[in-house]
């Protein structure tokens, strides 16, 4: 495999794993400059891409070729974009692990956390989590594969807008300069700005933690509250994200960036987003079970609330929005009461982390 790579003078295609809406959008953007090979699990999806240049109805650049062989993808590509939903992240990473080499650059675009649990444990039985039991997605990749040069993609990137070629920007974060530069080279265009950041954990956490605030934003909308309340939430949400990110090993400055505050504002104004919807429907009186029943994929923020709430119990810090959302989602607290509680919470200082 390595030899095949060494001897080819032709530029390698860029690999994209996952053809959901975000994966498709990124594959199309990459295809403007490079050859692209995408991986899909199902034969019929692969055939659809290769013959009709579409994936579940979404149009794909005709230059994009598909494969359902992880081995083929890994041996053909030196750079891989891992664009899969967080629920499937661990499984897909393990599928690819045997074929990933230390020379691969892997950039993921998944916003979520994975919890390391002992045998017989699940999130219902585990009430406390330490930091070393929680992994960001880059930590999952490093733990499960031989790839070390890992990066992540985060920022306000609504797939629909990207597909419509509207201007946007993203952050590529990695400890490795070469990963940042390669990501910028591959993705940057007139309509798409790409910023670099060395604090990969902080950038990943920003993308993850903002989902909590997005649920709260949906709830405010569902309660029929106005823009003042939203401004309040975004500002307090940002403070909470900064504290949590710091406690989990990120820097405050990443929260201030595009992947943090940038994505937070976008998500809190996107009624279509799954996290926002969960909050909205909660406020309209549905229970979590009722909401989840009718959702195709779990809204990532629900998991994040659970994990972060368990982490708070060992971290010795308070995060009132997360804690109250946890009580609403899992302990039957009425959403109005949670709001009351937050309004009375003794925040004495506006900004206490800069």
């Amino acid at each position, binding site marked *: 495999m*390595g030899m095949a*790579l*060494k*001897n*080819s003078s032709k530029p*390698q295609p860029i690999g994209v794993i996952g053809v959901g809406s975000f994966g498709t959008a990124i594959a199309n953007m990459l295809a403007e400059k490079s050859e692209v090979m995408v991986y899909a699990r199902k034969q019929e999806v692969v055939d659809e891409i290769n013959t009709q240049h579409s994936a579940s109805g979404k149009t794909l650049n005709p230059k994009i070729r598909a494969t359902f062989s992880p081995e083929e993808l890994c041996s053909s590509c*030196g750079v891989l974009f891992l664009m899969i939903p967080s629920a499937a992240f661990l499984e897909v990473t393990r599928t690819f692990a*045997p074929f990933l*080499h*230390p*020379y691969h*650059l892997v950039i993921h675009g998944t916003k979520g956390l994975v919890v390391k649990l002992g045998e017989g444990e699940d999130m219902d039985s585990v009430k406390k989590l330490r930091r070393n039991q929680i992994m960001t997605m880059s930590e999952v990749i490093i733990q499960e594969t*031989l790839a*070390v*040069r890992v990066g992540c993609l985060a920022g306000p990137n609504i797939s629909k807008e990207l597909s419509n070629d509207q201007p946007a920007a993203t952050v590529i974060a990695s*400890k*490795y*300069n*070469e990963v940042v530069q390669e990501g910028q080279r591959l993705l940057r265009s007139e309509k798409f700005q790409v910023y670099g950041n060395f604090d990969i954990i902080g950038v990943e956490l920003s993308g993850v933690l903002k989902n909590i605030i997005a649920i709260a934003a949906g709830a405010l909308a569902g309660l029929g509250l106005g823009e003042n309340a939203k401004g309040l939430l975004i500002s307090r949400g940002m403070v909470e994200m900064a504290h949590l990110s710091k406690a989990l090993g990120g820097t405050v400055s990443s929260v201030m960036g595009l992947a943090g505050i940038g994505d937070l504002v976008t998500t809190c104004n996107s009624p279509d987003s799954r996290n926002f919807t969960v909050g909205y429907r909660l406020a309209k009186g549905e229970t979590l079970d009722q909401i989840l029943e009718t959702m195709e994929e779990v809204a990532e923020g629900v998991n994040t609330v659970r994990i972060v709430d368990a982490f708070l119990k060992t971290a010795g810090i308070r995060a009132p929005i997360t804690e109250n959302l946890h009580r609403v989602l899992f302990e039957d607290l009425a959403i109005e009461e949670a709001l009351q509680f937050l309004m009375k919470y003794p925040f004495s200082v506006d900004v206490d982390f800069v």
Partner: protein
Amino acid sequence: MEENYIKHQYAPILPKKDEWPVVKLARERKEFVNKVAALAEERILDLIGKNPEILKEELETTLYREKLRIKQNPWDVDPDDEGPFWGEVKNSLLQIHSEVSLTKAKKLEAYKAVLSKITSRYSEEIASNFKATHYKFTRRVVTYGFSRLLNAARVKGFGSLFSNQYTLQDKIQITGQTAQIRELATKGTIIMVPTHFSNLDSVLIGWIISVLGMPPFIYGAGLNLFNISIFAYFMNALGAYKVDRRKKNLMYLETLKTYSKEAIRFGCHSLFFPGGTRSRSGIIESKLKLGLLSTAIEAQRANFQQGISDVSGKIFIVPVTINYHFVLEAPSLIQDYLSQTGQERYYKENDEFSNSYKISKFLFKFFTKGSDISVSIGRAMDVMGNYVDQDGKSQDKWGREVNTEEYFMSNGKVTVDAQREEEYTQMLGKRIVEEFHKINRVFSSHLVAFVAFELIQTKNAKMDLFDLIRLPQEDLVVGYEEFKAACQVALDKIFELKAQGKIDAAPHLYRSMDEIITHGLENVGMYHAKRPLIKNKEGNLATEDMSLLYFYHNRLHGYGLEKLF
């Protein structure tokens, strides 16, 4: 499970000393020194982007600092011509400065000539003075002398001085992956990274390497040790090159790194004390000095770049822990630690090792009384921290083969990326610390010191470390039964960790708890004027020196054992 240590006779892996890399290096010393000087110069020019103005600034900074050092902090070992040399550098710089008509290129040339003189001087100064005959002599003196002392002390009766019943290996046990390190030393290049608690470590490790039948390793020894003639002799004999911690200028540091990197590439097995200096607190190193470690990664990459992809160009990192009941310098180390205000500052290295008399006294005590030492050799890793097998092949966590070269490749080629290698160095540092904790061998003395300190701290929960140390001695007493029970709890946890491969334990920890405690009390810091832990008249535990107790307690820091109290 009692002492099951077997003494091995290890045959030399390279019987002919002409084949020893360190001998070859000594033979080519002059060429090697010149090569290092030239490469270091190149490296510095790259770093400053070949800009004559920056080079001028660096030269002036170096000159200033060197003059200051000569004036404020002179050592016996410093050569006499230092003053004149830097005077010349100063004159050259002034002359270049005064020639305003020089073009940029000419200026760079002129400054380069000065730089070249400096790197040549540093390279010569750093280079080791290894002599195979001295090495053999030293080795025989150490082994012969020590075993005479040992037998005199242990075998009673007339003629005991000439008995061979006990050898040094009874005193200093070598455990762990001895076969692997011997095997790999014939195939690739070894970099041994031991924990560092005492100035005796380097002599000890030198002896271990020779017992294991391996050719001498080269290593960077603090220049301050060369101030003491007895040490200087040992150090030279053991292949030491000199590291002068007073010199922190760019030119010196780059020359030093180049020396280390090129010696590794030459095939010299090397020894790094990755903590940089002796652990002041008694805690196993958790933050490593990455400067020299980065040269291992650079050397490995350079070998790959040159197409040496087989095992002969491979570099193996072997962590080693040295486990003591007693650290001679403990009182001054812990004082240093305590007076340190959290910032790095300069340490005056003196006291215990200030003269040969004290050292001899210690050595005599050491060999005639108890206090055994064990040295644990860890599993070898590649420079990325992957374990390697007997053949030097790297393996991942799941036992699959890993090609180390691929870590340095992009687009199918080995590439140079300083920032990448910096990250790799940090990863390697973390892996070494992990391995230190795994192969660290718990002694009875560590256990009793740890438990006693934790109990005292729990009783005075509101006090910080400094308050505790100031407590009157009568407040520093722990009841025996309580102590014994707590020791059992801690020991159970240690065995649990051992079963998970997270720590190692000495065989004497399988005795009864009363015996373990007795053994521990006899041995913990046994030669200090004030003992860290004793049994008082009432049969309870007391300390004569709380800060020493803290020092020995720290050996078990980093395993989460504190949570038991």
